């Protein structure tokens, strides 16, 4: 019994359990719906998933280092309205605005980590404050949809190579780089160490401050990228862009088997979590569950998945 439960909980922490659920749900949806496995829906599903996966990767890195970033959704929103508003359909302006957005993302990450590392504010509070500030900035800039995204950018997002959207291919390439980085970089190893036990890391010769700073800056930059993906998909930046994405991404990281306390987790699991969340919404739509009862199913599936795989022994969230 213990052997079984340990093995099951290993599946969870290895990030494999969530993919089993993804596969199960995909098969179920294929049987229950004529429209799920179609040339129209699959590319659409991939496009839907892109922003969430990007933001999840960023949050995964912050969470591994024992941090959390609640400001990511606001960064997505700010990026969306800025590149759409400033760019207003012009490629040159769009690129300049994108560069500005990355500069802002960098600044946000640096301020977050300044609060956390120097002023010892818990990341939860610091980034919650940052979230409010950025929301305020967005609403000061615009309260409705503004400008547009240049056609070539939107095309890049939607054009397909076979059944796969170009943007999805780009995402996969980035993910491969991130995998490589997580496995072989010194910084990544130290992220796990600092998140696992800051005192042990410090005594082992790790300088914790820069490690935490990197984790929050990287997280913010991924949030900017997610914002670009989101606005390209929508075509126009509106202040409601990205609403609630931070909670979805945190959920994705957790059902992917990472510890919310830091120091443990696999990227493949977090990505699986993001895919699962997008898949649940898409499947419920395709199966024809009413919009109003979708929340019930979504919540039910998530809670069941975690209850099934997190056993008392060996796992902590």
């Amino acid at each position, binding site marked *: 019994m213990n052997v079984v439960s340990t093995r099951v909980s290993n599946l969870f922490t290895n990030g494999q359990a969530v993919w089993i659920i993804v596969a199960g749900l995909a098969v179920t949806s294929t049987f229950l719906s004529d429209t799920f496995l179609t040339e129209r829906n699959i590319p659409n599903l991939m496009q839907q998933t892109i922003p969430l996966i990007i933001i999840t990767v960023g949050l995964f890195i912050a969470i591994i280092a024992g941090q959390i970033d609640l400001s990511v959704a606001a960064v997505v929103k700010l990026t969306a309205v800025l590149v759409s508003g400033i760019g207003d359909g012009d490629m040159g302006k769009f690129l300049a605005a994108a560069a500005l957005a990355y500069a802002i993302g960098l600044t946000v990450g640096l301020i977050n980590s300044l609060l956390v590392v120097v002023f010892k504010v818990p990341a939860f509070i610091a980034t919650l404050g940052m979230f409010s500030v950025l929301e305020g900035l967005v609403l000061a800039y615009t309260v409705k949809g503004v400008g547009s995204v240049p056609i070539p950018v939107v095309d890049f997002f939607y054009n397909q190579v076979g059944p796969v959207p170009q943007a999805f291919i780009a995402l996969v390439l980035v993910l491969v780089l991130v995998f490589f980085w997580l*496995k*072989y*970089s*010194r*910084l990544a*190893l*130290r992220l*796990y*160490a600092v998140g*696992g*036990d800051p*005192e*042990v*890391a*410090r*005594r*082992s*010769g*790790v300088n914790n401050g820069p490690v935490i700073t990197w984790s929050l800056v990287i997280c913010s930059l991924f949030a900017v990228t997610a914002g670009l993906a989101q606005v390209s998909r929508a075509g126009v930046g509106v202040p409601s862009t990205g609403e609630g994405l931070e909670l979805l991404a945190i959920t994705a990281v957790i059902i992917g088997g990472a*510890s919310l306390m830091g*120091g*443990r987790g696999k990227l493949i699991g977090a990505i699986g979590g993001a895919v699962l969340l997008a898949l649940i919404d898409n499947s419920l739509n395709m199966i024809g569950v009413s919009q109003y009862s979708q929340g019930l199913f979504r919540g039910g599936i998530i809670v069941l998945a975690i209850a099934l795989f997190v056993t008392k022994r060996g796992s902590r969230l």
Partner: protein
Amino acid sequence: MTNYLLHSNSANDRVDAEEGGHPPLLRMRGINKSFVGIAALIDVNFDLYGGQVHALLGQNGAGKSTLISIMSGALQPDSGVIELDGHVVAFASPSDALKNGVVAVYQELSLLPDMTVAENLFVGIEPGWGPFTNRAEMRNKAREILDILGAVGIDPGVVVGSLSIANQQLVEISKSLTRRARIVILDEPSAVLGNQELGLLYAMVRKLTASGIAVVYITHRLDEVEEIADVVTVMRDGLKVLGESQSAVSQAMMISAMVGRELLLDAPPKWQVGVSQAMEGPSLVLIGVELPGMDGDTMDFEVKSGEILGIAGLTGSGRSRILRVLAGLEPPLQGKVMLDNQEVKLRSPRSAISQGIVLVPEDRKKLGLIMNQSVSNNTVLSILRRLSRWSFVSRSGSRRHTQLMVDKMRIKLASLTQEVRYLSGGNQQKVVVARCLGTNPKLLLLDEPLRGVDIGAKSEIIDIIGQVAEQGTAVIVVSSEIEDVLALTDRVIVVRDGRVVKELTGPNATESKILECSSVRES
């Protein structure tokens, strides 16, 4: 500054004279350290030579931990000189000491449980190029170090959290090698090990010394000293009372050095409760209780109602474990527990309390009290049901009960609603005892009841425990301070490796006798 030569005592001098030849790796001279006016170290000299195992002995509070904390940079001395290789050094922090090659391996291991053995060995000093690590090199180097130290059974690719405590300790010692350690301090490494693992540990220590590393080895087990040590230092009451090469000391000498009272400086006064009268019939009887992780040894003993039984033994001997079993915190592997001639099943603390067994835990701040809640809330926590009607807790009832307990135990506080974290250690301890007594126990278990308690409160707590016993409650006291056990109890049993090895009563129960029984493993 104090001139150490004028103040040094005879034990300090002896080592000076003995090792006249080559210079020591680490030389500590005239180290003083006190905490809020209480001297923890008085003018201590300590020399450490490369390639030697230096055993550090002494009872709790003798100053061993303070000494190694200073050695490893966790504390700074009030005065005194530390020289490393003949150069004066001052370690500002543990990482500072680490840079100078001083590594301390504590009982609470400092490893990252979710990371692999190889990652743990090299975190912070990862081999590689630029921003990248070389995983293969890391694994190979880890393998090499583990092999050198004889830990051939440990796979460097495995996650540390999945290893046994013993193996984790071996990893921790291996880690010191990757940090270019020249001095390795081992704080009671044998406390968590079984007999087989002990052999591995000794082999590892010998490998360390063979490569020229100096090892400071803290232990309570005298047989270990003969097995592994080259030099022995015994501390008592902040003084170094013995410093000799191992071959020149006997176990008897070490025991009398640890216990001896010829240097009564600030020795606390001794109390003795009037020996209470054991009442009719046994209250609690243990029959063949096997504690988890004790290799099949079992424990049998009994406590009569109205009696105070002391349990003495070293860390890891099972002395606290048995209390946890009786309090329903962990199940015994086998055996029966009888209370008033009836077998009791102890499934949880709640079931233990309802059957009349309650524990005053060792760590009151974590396990005994809810620190940021009021004295009143803490006092009534175990008897909420009794104080409630229709599932609402009676405020006047709990106030009355708390006031009664506060008066009875003379708890000093500003008001009943004061948060317990603002109370002194002694008064906090009284609140824990008050909470436990509220359940009207048949058997009261006390784990380290006098730890971190000031002298005044100490005697009051001793009085209270005496009164509790007089009213017919059976009491079991566990303490690492043999003196406390003697002050509190009528009868002492000594435990080792999960079984009772000796029972001592009256004049036979002396500090040195208890120390001898608990620290010498018979062959």
